[in-house]
C-alpha cells in the first residue's frame, strides 16, 4: 500500500517533459503481446486480449497514461535501487544468465526487487507443492523441468492456448516469449489496475478536501437495492445448479513472477493485491522467504473461492475476475441500469425482431454461476454483445441508451484487461500436456539459452534502428539471453506508431500481422498437435472475437464521436463522478443502514443496532493517520504522540487487513462516524458478575469536586471585605451595649429577657458538601450555584451595611444578578466569537491572507463591560471607596462607638484607659461593679484596703462580691449572663437557712414575737411561715431603702399582690356595707349565696340538681326572692 502511495505521489510530481522517454520502454512492451499472439494465429484469445488492452489503453485518457508512465518510471528507479542487493542474493544454482537486471526492466510492483532467480526458486517450491497436491511426479526438480513447468504455467496464465498452439514448436523460445508475454499481459493488467487505483487514489485524496453532501445516497441506495435484487434473482435461478467442486483447488496457483504481487495468484489477486503489495513493500521486515510467504498466501486463499474446482483448471481465476468485472459494471448504476435485466416485450415490443441474441448483465451472471463460460473470450463477447445489441437497436444517435451503452462499453474495455486470459480446461488434460511439455523442454533445453535468441535480438535490433538508444540503455542494464525480452519491444514501435496514427484496430491488426508474420514463421516449429482440437475451438472463437473487435472498434469510434462532446460537461465534475462511482456501493449500504434505523420518519427503537466493524475502524484510523502527517508539520503538539501510537499499531494491523473484505474502503470518514467512535471507556461497559448483578464501575471514574469550589476565593479584596464585615460586627456589639445602657437609663424596670446578648458569630462560608461527579466538565448544579450566588449576594448586602436581609429581597437581587451575569457572559461570547478579520499588513506570507481575532482578549472584556454598563472607573471606585475606604470609615466609627460607650458608662473615664473592649473594662467582667477597676491606678475606690479586709480574710481581691450589690446594674447584668455570678464573691459560706417558723417551734422564739407569729400562722392556715426572701417575686416586700439619714420615713410598703387584695377587700367592704344598708340580710347567707352565684350561674337554670337543691336551694332560692 505504502509503496503505491509513494510511487503515485512521486509520479504525479514528475515533470511532463519526461514523458516521451519513458513512454517507449513501456508502450512497446504493451503492444508486443498482440504481435506475438497474432502471429500465433491460433492464439486468438490472447490476440483478443492484446487487442482489447491496446485499444482500451489507447482509449484511456491521457491522464491515466501519464500516471502509468510515471509510475513505471518510478518503479524502475526503485528497482534500480534494489538491483545491487538482489545481485548478491543470486542463487548460483539457478540460471546464471538471468541476472537481476532483468527484473528491473520488468516494471513490477513497488519492490519488485527480487529478480527472476528467487522467483524461480520459489517456482520450484511451488511446483513441488503442486506436484504434491497433484500427486504427480514428485521430486522432479531438475532445472529443465522447472523451466518447462514454469513455461507451462506462465503460458497458462498469460495465454493458456499458447503452449498448446500448433505454432508453438520451439518451446525454449516460446517459453521465453511466453514469459514475456505473460509478463506483458500481466503488465497490462497491472497497469489497468494501477490506473484504476490511481483514479481511486485521486478520489480518495479528495475525500479530505471536499465534502460531499449526502443527497445522492438515497439514489445510490435504491440503485444498489435493485442490483441486489438482481443478484438475488440470479442466485435463486442458479441455486439449482450444484456448486462446482469442493473448492479445494488452488490448482494452478503456482506463481512465477518476480514479486509477490505479480505472482499469478489468479483473479484473487484482485482481492489480495493490497496485502501482497504491502508485504512486498515491507519485504525487508518480513522474516519469511518468498516460498514461505507464497505457501502461506496460497493456503490462506485456498478455501476462499466459490469458483474453485478440482477438475477444472483456471476456472477459479477466470471466474473470479469475470465476476469482479461484472460487479463493477453493474455498480455503475448510472449507466448500467438499463442493462441489468432482460429487455421485456412490454418495454420494446419489437426488440426481439431486431436482436436475435439478447444479452444482459443478469443473464451473464446467471451464465457465470452456471459455469457456462469456458474462456475469457466467451465472457468478453457476451459483454460486448450487450452493448452492441443496444447500439444496434437504438439507432438514433441521440438516444440516451446509446450513450449509456457507449460509456459502458468503454468501461468494459478498461475492465476486461483485468481478466486473465485463461481457458477453462479439464485438469486431466492439463496434466497430460504438462508432462508432454516437460519432456519437450528437457529436449530443447540446451539450445534455449544462447543460440536462438541472439539472432532474434540482432535481427530485431536491426529492424528498428531508431530505438537503438533506448535499446542500448535497456541492454546496458541487463545481460545475457534475457535481452530478448527487451528486444521484443523494438519491432513493436511501428505498430504503436501506426496505432497512434490511425485508431483503426482493423488496420492495426493487419499491420501487425504483416510485421509479425515473418518472425512467427521464422521461429515457430510445428506443434505437437495433440491439442489441436481445442485450439481450433479457440481459433473459431478467436474469429468471433475479431469480429467483436471490429464492432468494438466501431464502437470506439462512436464513443469518440459521441462521448467526447458529451463528456465535456462532465469533465469539470470528473472528480465528483469518480467519487460517486467509487463510493456508490459503500454509500448505498450506509444509507441503507441509516434507513433501517427509521420507520415512518421516526427512529425505530426496534431497529438493529449499528455495530462497528474492525475493518471500518482500521480504515478510519488509517485515514486519520494519512491526514496526520500534514497536520503534524503545522503545529500540533498532540500529533506526535498519536502518530507514534499509530506507527506502533501498524504492524499488528496490516496482517489482518488483507484477510477481510475491503469493499467499502473508499468512503470518506464523515460517512462512517461509527468507526470513529473512540473506545468506550472501561467504566461505562456493562458487566455482570457471576450472580448476574451488574458490576458497578462508578468508583473508578468518580471525581470529587475540589474543595473550595463553592466558596469565595481568597483574594485581597475578599480579605478586605471580610475584615470590614468583622469590623461591623464588632461595632454592632458595642452598639448593642450602648443600646442597653441607654435603655437602662430610661427604663424603670427590667425584664429578665429584655436584653438579649448580642453576640454575632463571624461569617464562615460553609463549603458545599463533598460532591462527586462522573466526568470532567464543570459541575452543573443550578441549585447549588444559585445558592452560592445568593450567599455572595447576602455577603455583599451585609457589607453594604444591612444587618439582616429579607429572604425575598435576597431572592430578587440574586435573580437580577443572575440575569446580569447571563447578559455579561453572552455579550462576552458574542465578542469572542466575532468574525475574524484579515491581518492588516504582513499576513500574506503564504499567499493566503492570514486571519486574526477581531478583538484581542482585553478588548473583548472591555467591550463587554462597556456594553453592560460597567465602567472601569466604577469598578475601581467600588474597590477604592466602597471597600477600602469603607474599612477606614468603619474603623473610625468603631472608635467613636467605643468612646461613646465609655462616656456613657463613666463620663470621666479617661479615654486612654479604655480596655480592648472600649468599655473600659474587660468584657463581662465585674470590674466596674466590683470596684477594682481602679486598682490599676492604685486607687482604693471603696476604701477596703484601708480597712485591711484583705489581710483579715485573706482575700485575693478586694472586689465587692456581686451578690451584695443589689442594684439594677447587677440585675441587668445577671439577667444577661447568669453564669457570671459564680465567678467571684462567693468567698464566704452562705449561712444556713433560717428554720421556718411553725406551730411546733414557735416556742423557740422570743416571747414578745410569739403572739405575732401565732397570728401569722393562723392566717397561714397553720402552715410554716416563709421567709420574705423566699417568697415569689411579686409577693416579696420591697426592700426598704435607707436614705442617707438612716431614718425610715415612709412606712413599709406592702407587696403588690397584698396591696391589691387589700384594695379589693376594702372595696368589697364598702360594697357590702352598701348592700347591708340597702337590703337587710342575714350575714350568714351572704357568702354562700355569693359563692353559689359565682360558681354555677348557668347550670342552675338548665339542670336543677335535686340533691343540691335540698342543701342549698332554700337559701339560694330565698335570696333572689328576697331581692
Amino acid at each position, binding site marked *: 500500500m505504502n509503496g503505491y502511495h509513494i510511487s503515485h505521489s512521486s509520479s504525479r510530481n514528475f515533470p511532463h517533459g519526461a514523458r516521451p522517454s519513458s513512454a517507449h520502454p513501456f508502450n512497446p512492451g504493451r503492444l508486443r503481446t498482440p504481435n506475438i499472439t497474432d502471429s500465433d494465429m491460433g492464439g486468438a484469445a490472447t490476440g483478443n486480449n492484446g487487442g482489447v488492452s491496446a485499444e482500451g489503453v489507447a482509449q484511456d485518457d491521457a491522464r491515466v497514461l501519464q500516471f502509468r508512465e510515471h509510475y513505471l518510471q518510478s518503479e524502475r528507479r526503485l528497482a534500480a535501487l534494489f538491483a545491487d542487493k538482489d545481485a548478491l542474493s543470486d542463487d548460483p544454482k539457478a540460471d546464471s544468465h538471468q541476472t537481476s537486471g532483468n527484473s528491473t526492466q520488468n516494471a513490477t510492483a513497488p519492490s519488485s526487487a527480487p529478480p527472476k532467480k528467487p522467483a524461480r526458486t520459489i517456482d520450484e517450491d511451488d511446483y513441488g507443492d503442486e506436484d504434491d497436491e497433484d500427486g504427480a511426479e514428485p521430486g522432479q526438480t531438475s532445472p529443465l523441468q522447472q523451466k518447462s513447468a514454469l513455461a507451462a504455467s506462465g503460458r497458462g496464465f498469460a495465454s493458456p492456448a499458447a503452449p498448446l498452439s500448433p505454432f508453438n514448436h520451439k518451446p525454449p523460445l516460446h517459453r521465453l516469449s511466453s514469459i514475456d508475454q505473460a509478463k506483458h499481459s500481466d503488465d497490462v493488467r497491472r497497469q489497468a489496475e494501477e490506473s484504476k487505483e490511481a483514479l481511486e487514489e485521486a478520489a480518495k485524496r479528495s475525500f479530505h478536501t471536499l465534502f460531499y453532501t449526502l443527497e445522492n445516497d438515497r439514489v445510490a441506495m435504491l440503485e444498489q437495492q435493485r442490483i441486489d435484487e438482481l443478484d438475488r434473482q440470479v442466485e435463486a435461478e442458479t441455486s439449482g445448479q450444484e456448486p462446482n467442486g469442493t473448492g479445494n483447488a488452488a490448482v494452478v496457483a503456482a506463481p512465477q513472477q518476480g514479486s509477490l504481487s505479480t505472482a499469478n495468484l489468479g483473479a484473487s489477486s484482485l482481492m489480495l493485491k493490497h496485502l501482497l503489495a504491502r508485504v512486498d513493500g515491507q519485504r525487508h521486515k518480513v522474516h519469511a522467504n518468498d516460498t514461505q510467504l507464497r505457501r502461506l498466501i496460497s493456503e490462506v486463499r485456498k478455501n476462499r473461492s466459490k469458483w474453485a474446482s478440482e477438475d477444472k483448471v483456471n476456472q477459479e481465476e477466470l471466474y473470479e475476475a469475470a465476476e469482479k468485472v461484472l460487479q463493477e459494471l453493474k455498480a455503475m448504476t448510472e449507466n448500467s441500469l438499463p442493462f441489468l435485466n432482460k429487455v421485456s416485450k412490454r418495454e420494446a415490443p419489437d426488440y426481439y425482431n431486431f436482436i436475435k441474441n439478447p444479452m444482459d448483465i443478469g443473464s451473464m451472471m446467471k451464465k457465470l454461476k452456471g459455469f457456462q463460460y469456458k474462456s475469457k473470450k466467451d465472457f468478453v463477447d457476451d459483454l460486448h454483445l450487450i452493448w452492441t445489441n443496444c447500439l444496434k437497436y437504438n439507432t438514433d444517435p441521440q438516444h440516451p441508451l446509446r450513450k449509456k451503452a457507449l460509456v459502458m462499453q468503454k468501461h468494459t474495455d478498461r475492465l476486461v484487461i483485468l481478466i486473465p486470459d485463461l481457458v477453462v480446461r479439464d485438469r486431466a488434460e492439463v496434466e497430460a500436456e504438462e508432462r508432454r511439455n516437460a519432456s519437450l523442454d528437457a529436449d530443447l533445453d540446451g539450445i534455449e539459452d544462447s543460440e536462438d535468441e541472439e539472432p532474434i535480438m540482432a535481427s530485431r535490433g536491426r529492424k528498428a534502428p531508431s530505438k537503438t538508444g533506448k535499446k542500448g540503455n535497456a541492454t546496458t542494464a541487463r545481460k545475457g539471453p534475457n535481452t530478448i525480452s527487451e528486444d521484443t519491444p523494438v519491432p513493436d514501435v511501428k505498430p504503436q506508431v501506426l496505432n497512434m496514427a490511425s485508431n483503426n484496430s482493423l488496420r492495426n491488426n493487419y499491420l501487425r500481422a504483416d510485421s509479425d508474420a515473418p518472425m512467427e514463421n521464422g521461429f515457430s516449429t510445428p506443434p505437437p498437435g495433440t491439442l489441436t482440437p481445442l485450439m481450433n475451438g479457440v481459433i473459431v472463437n478467436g474469429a468471433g472475437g475479431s469480429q467483436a473487435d471490429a464492432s468494438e472498434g466501431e464502437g470506439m469510434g462512436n464513443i469518440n464521436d459521441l462521448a467526447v462532446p458529451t463528456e465535456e460537461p462532465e469533465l469539470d465534475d470528473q472528480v465528483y463522478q469518480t467519487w460517486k462511482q467509487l463510493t456508490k456501493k459503500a454509500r448505498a449500504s450506509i444509507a441503507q443502514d441509516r434507513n433501517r434505523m427509521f420507520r415512518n420518519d421516526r427512529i425505530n427503537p426496534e431497529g438493529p443496532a449499528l455495530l462497528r466493524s474492525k475493518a471500518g475502524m482500521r480504515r478510519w484510523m488509517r485515514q486519520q493517520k494519512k491526514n496526520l502527517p500534514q497536520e503534524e508539520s503545522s503545529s500540533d503538539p498532540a500529533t506526535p504522540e498519536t502518530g507514534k501510537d499509530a506507527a506502533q499499531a501498524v504492524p499488528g494491523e496490516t496482517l489482518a487487513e488483507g484477510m477481510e473484505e475491503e469493499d467499502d474502503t473508499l468512503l470518506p470518514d464523515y460517512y462512517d462516524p461509527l468507526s470513529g467512535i473512540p473506545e468506550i471507556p472501561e467504566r461505562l461497559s456493562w458487566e455482570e458478575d457471576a450472580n448476574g448483578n451488574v458490576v458497578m464501575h462508578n468508583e473508578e471514574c468518580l471525581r470529587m469536586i475540589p474543595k473550595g469550589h463553592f466558596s469565595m476565593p481568597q483574594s485581597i479584596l475578599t480579605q478586605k471585605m471580610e475584615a470590614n464585615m468583622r469590623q461591623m460586627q464588632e461595632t454592632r456589639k458595642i452598639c448593642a451595649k*450602648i443600646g442597653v445602657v441607654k435603655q437602662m437609663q430610661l427604663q424603670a424596670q427590667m425584664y429578665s429577657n429584655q436584653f438579649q446578648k448580642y453576640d454575632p458569630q463571624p461569617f464562615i462560608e460553609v463549603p458545599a458538601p463533598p460532591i462527586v461527579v462522573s466526568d470532567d466538565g464543570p459541575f452543573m448544579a443550578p441549585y447549588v450555584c444559585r445558592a452560592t450566588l445568593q450567599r455572595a449576594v447576602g455577603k455583599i448586602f451585609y457589607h453594604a451595611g444591612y444587618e439582616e436581609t429579607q429572604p425575598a429581597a435576597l431572592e430578587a437581587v440574586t435573580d437580577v444578578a443572575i440575569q446580569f451575569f447571563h447578559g455579561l457572559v453572552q455579550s462576552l461570547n458574542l465578542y469572542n466569537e466575532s468574525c475574524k478579520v484579515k491581518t492588516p499588513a504582513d499576513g500574506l506570507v503564504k499567499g493566503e491572507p492570514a486571519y486574526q481575532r477581531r478583538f484581542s482578549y482585553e478588548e473583548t472584556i472591555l467591550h463587554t463591560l462597556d456594553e453592560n*454598563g460597567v465602567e472601569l472607573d466604577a469598578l475601581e471606585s467600588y474597590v477604592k471607596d466602597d471597600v477600602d475606604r*469603607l474599612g477606614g470609615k468603619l474603623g473610625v466609627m468603631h472608635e467613636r462607638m467605643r468612646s461613646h460607650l465609655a462616656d456613657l458608662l463613666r463620663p470621666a473615664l479617661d479615654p486612654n484607659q479604655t480596655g480592648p473592649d472600649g468599655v473600659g473594662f474587660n468584657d463581662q467582667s465585674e470590674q466596674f461593679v466590683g470596684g477594682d477597676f481602679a486598682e490599676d491606678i492604685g486607687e482604693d475606690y471603696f476604701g477596703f484596703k484601708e480597712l485591711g479586709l484583705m489581710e483579715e480574710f485573706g482575700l485575693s481581691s478586694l472586689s465587692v462580691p456581686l451578690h451584695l450589690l443589689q442594684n439594677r446594674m447587677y440585675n441587668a447584668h445577671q439577667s444577661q449572663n447568669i453564669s457570671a455570678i459564680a465567678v467571684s464573691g462567693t468567698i464566704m459560706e452562705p449561712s444556713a437557712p433560717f428554720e421556718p417558723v411553725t406551730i411546733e417551734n414557735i416556742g423557740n422564739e422570743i416571747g414578745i414575737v410569739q403572739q405575732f407569729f401565732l397570728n401569722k400562722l393562723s392566717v397561714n392556715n397553720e402552715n410554716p411561715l416563709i421567709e420574705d426572701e423566699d417568697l415569689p417575686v411579686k409577693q416579696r416586700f420591697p426592700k426598704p431603702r435607707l436614705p442617707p439619714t438612716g431614718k425610715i420615713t415612709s412606712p413599709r410598703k406592702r407587696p403588690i399582690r397584698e396591696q391589691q387584695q387589700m384594695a379589693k377587700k376594702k372595696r368589697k367592704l364598702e360594697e357590702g356595707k352598701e348592700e347591708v344598708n340597702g337590703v337587710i340580710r342575714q350575714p350568714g347567707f351572704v357568702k354562700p349565696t355569693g359563692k353559689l352565684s359565682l360558681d354555677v350561674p348557668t347550670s342552675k337554670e338548665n339542670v336543677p340538681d335535686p340533691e343540691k337543691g335540698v342543701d342549698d336551694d332554700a337559701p339560694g332560692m330565698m335570696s333572689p326572692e328576697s331581692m
Partner: protein
Amino acid sequence: MSSEKTAKYRTEIQQMMFVSGETAEPAPDTTTLVEQIVQQQVMEMLRDCTALATRRGNRSISTDDLMMLIRHDKPKLARLRHFLQWKDVRKNVKETENPPEAGADVAGGDDALGAAVAGPAGPVPAKANKKARVDLVWDVPSFFSEQVPARDDEEDEEEEEMNHATLERLKYADERTKDMSREDYMHWSECRQASFTFRKGKRFREWAGFGVITDAKPNDDIIDILGFLTFEIVQTLTEEALKVKAAEEMWKKRNGQDGKGGKNTKRKREPGLFDWPEEEREPVQPNHIREGFRRLQRPHNKGRALSNFSRQSHRRALRLI
C-alpha cells in the same frame, strides 16, 4: 407653555448663565428654553422624591430623598453636602451674631467658601469646626442602630474630595474675575447671588408645582437644596451648550469658507480696537442648548444592561442633570 407668560426666571437664568461662562446676553427664547428644561427637571425630581417618600411610608419628601436622586453624581453630592453644611454654619452664625452678615448670605450657589472667608474672622471659623455633618442615609453611620455624635478630631476624607470639586469651579470663577473692574465685579457677584429660590420661595413653589406634584408644604431645606440643584442644572446646561457652540464655531472656522463662504468673507472685517471680544458677540442659541441637553440625556449603558439579550425594549427615563 407659551414662553413669555411663564418665563418667570429670565433674569436669574441670565445671571446664572453669565456666571457659568456665557458672556453675551442670551436671547429670551434661550432663557425660556432653559427655564423649561429646569422646570421639567425639578418636576421630575419632585415626582421621584414623592415616590421614594411614599415607599418609605412618608407623605412629605425629605432631604434624603433628594440626595438619593443624585446619589450617582458624587461630586455634585459632595457639593450639595458642602452647601448644606455651610448653610448650617451660616444659620448658627446668624443666630449667634445678630447683625446679619451680608457676605454670608451672598453665596446663593456654591460660593460658601468665599462667604466664610468674607465673614468676620473671629467666630465663624470656630463655628465652622462644629458644622453639622450632613450624613447620607446610605453612609456608614446608618449601618448601626445607635447614633453616635461625631468626634471633633476626625477629619472626613470626603471633604477633600468635595473641596476639590468646588475648587475647580472657584478657580474658573477666579480666572474670569481676575481682570474685572470693580463695577464688573459687582455685577458678577450680584449675578452669583441669583437663585431660583432665595427670597422667592412662593414663586418657586408655584413654578415647581408644589401642591400638585407633592406636598404643598416643603421643608426649607428642600427648597434650598432645590435652589442649589437648579443652579447646578443651569450651570451644567450652559457649560454643555457652550461646548457645543465652541465645537460649532471651530467647525465653522475650519469649513466655514466652503459653507457660507461668500457671505462670511464679505462680512468679515478686521477686528476693531473697540470691538467686543469675539465670544461676546454671539450668545448661546436655543439650538445649542438643545444639543447640550441631548448630550446630557444620552443614556448610559448601565441602564439597559439588564435588557440586553432580552427582547424588552428599554424605556428611557429622563436623566437628571
